[in-house]
């Protein structure tokens, strides 16, 4: 299927919108052909993941767009960078890392993006509506925008997110279209004990299993409580988008395109049904920890992937209950949350308890952890997944309660009762 462009799009391609817009359109057109799109679709917003420094190529790309006088054509938020601009000493990269990471972040700002520096832009006020066509990068943000908000985006990688933002276009393919958004797999979670489904720790584990089980298939999950909170869905999506390529999941009775299981399936027969059994979930739970069974020592605790919300900080404060942590405890979040914490006085309380706030970035994308190795405890499925490769730490996964109790005790404390089935 050949890609058809409008007259305006052809004009941008031939340089009518400037050098950078033409480069963005060339890359977009190539991507659209790969994705099998027959045309482009106009978008209303973008979220760019490409501001994180992985090497000098990313800087080269962003600065090429700036040199070509590029400017985003739709409201665009930015994902994390590789520096904590609020706490410059937090990231202990070398001189080259610091300089290049800064240049990359600056370049995206000069393209007209909003310096939000968060992987949870949807909790920083960027919330497109149901059916809205957008182009988002960052795998967890993609899953959240599609699933929880009902907006429409494909999984846009670094560079393509920026090309969409500069041209206000995305390939009309995949999850931008009705057909691809229909669930083909039913996930039956009705047999999971209600007491477990009330715990936040259940959701990243469910997501970890789903990512492995689904790959990139679209599912509808049955049996999730209708009052499940947004942070739980955020954790589910982030984990499923780490172990798999899940970009859209429906939750029957909860998410906008799934009033019922049947509606999410488009009133067709599912290709398969998978059951969330104790064995499968306990298998996913076990996979999240890489430290030897019974490991007692921990070197650090990290929470906040995706970035911690104000509600999650409230829970953290409640669990700390005035106690002080005995191992380094990092809570990663966006500057939108830091400002709220500061205004309410909670920031001082957290810092007094020994919690180190990481803003604009996080511990698996930047060198922040105090040692190059050791054991990291976390309640984030995404940290647990990427931690070993990116930080060199072994991981112990537990609930937020487990993380707090362990940090206060200075040793691993996990409540196995949560998982008795």
């Amino acid at each position, binding site marked *: 299927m050949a890609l058809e462009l409008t007259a305006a799009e052809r004009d941008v391609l031939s340089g009518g919108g400037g050098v950078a817009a033409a*480069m963005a359109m060339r*890359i977009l057109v190539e*991507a659209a052909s790969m994705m099998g799109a027959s045309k482009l679709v106009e978008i209303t917003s973008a979220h760019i993941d490409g501001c994180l420094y*992985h090497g000098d*190529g990313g800087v080269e790309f962003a600065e090429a767009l700036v040199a070509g006088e590029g400017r985003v054509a739709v409201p665009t938020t930015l994902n994390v960078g590789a520096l904590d601009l609020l706490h410059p000493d937090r990231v202990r990269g070398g001189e080259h890392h610091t300089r290049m990471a800064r240049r990359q972040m600056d370049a995206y700002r000069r393209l007209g993006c909003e310096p939000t520096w968060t992987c949870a832009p949807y909790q920083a006020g960027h919330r497109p509506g149901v059916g809205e066509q957008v182009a988002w990068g960052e*795998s967890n943000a993609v899953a959240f925008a599609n699933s929880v908000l009902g907006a429409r985006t494909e999984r846009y990688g*670094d560079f*393509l997110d920026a090309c969409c933002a500069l041209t206000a276009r995305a390939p009309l393919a995949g999850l931008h279209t009705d057909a691809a958004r229909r669930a083909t797999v039913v996930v039956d979670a009705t047999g999971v004990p209600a007491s477990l489904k009330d715990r936040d720790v259940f959701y990243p584990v469910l997501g970890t299993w789903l990512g492995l089980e689904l790959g990139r298939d679209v599912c509808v999950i049955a049996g999730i409580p209708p009052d499940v909170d947004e942070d739980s869905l955020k954790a589910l999506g982030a984990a499923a*988008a780490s172990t798999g390529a899940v970009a859209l999941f429906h939750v029957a009775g909860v998410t906008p395109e799934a009033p019922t299981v049947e509606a999410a399936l488009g009133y067709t027969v599912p290709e398969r049904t998978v059951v969330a059994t104790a064995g499968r979930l306990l298998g996913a739970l076990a996979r999240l920890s890489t430290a030897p069974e019974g490991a007692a020592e921990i070197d650090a605790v990290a929470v906040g992937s995706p970035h911690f919300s104000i509600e999650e900080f409230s829970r953290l404060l409640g669990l700390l209950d005035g106690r002080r942590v005995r191992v380094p405890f990092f809570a990663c979040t966006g500057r939108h949350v830091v400002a709220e914490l500061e205004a309410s006085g909670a920031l001082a309380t957290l810092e007094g308890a020994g919690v180190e706030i990481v803003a604009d970035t996080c511990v698996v994308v930047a060198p922040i952890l105090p040692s190059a190795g050791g054991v990291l405890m976390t309640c984030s499925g995404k940290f647990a997944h990427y931690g070993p*490769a990116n930080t060199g730490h072994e991981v112990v996964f537990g609930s937020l309660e487990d993380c707090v109790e362990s940090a206060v005790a200075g040793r691993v404390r996990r409540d196995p009762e949560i998982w008795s089935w």
Partner: protein
Amino acid sequence: MVTGRVLVDGEAVGPLLCLRAPISLWGGVDPRTGRVSDPRHPDNGRSVAGTVLAIPGAVGSSSSSAVMLELIRNAVAPAAVLLDRSDAILALGVVVARELGHPTVPVVELSLERIRGVPQGTTLKVVAGGRISWPEADDIHLGATR
């Protein structure tokens, strides 16, 4: 010989490395060395540099395009990539590399069923149009004595 769908056209030769599990290049391959760096991946420690890399599924991070670009810039990229299912994220890193004037890497969408039985390390040749060929078993044998 088999023919796949071209995502990025080009020519390359290299030994086949068929990964045994899906991978996220970000968090899965070290962009400086080209080695698989995910301790949970069955091919952890292997180098993808210079190989015809067959990937049974691209998963995970949307930063995988950036890792592909870095692999190319650092001259530790695969010679070619065969993707079981089309993935624009991975291929886009190659498109951007070319746009910035760096070497290109052919990327072909191909059901890996079609190269099942081809031993790891067999020299695969990728030519324009997504055609992939390799010496048949007899040729490999003859090649040793010729």
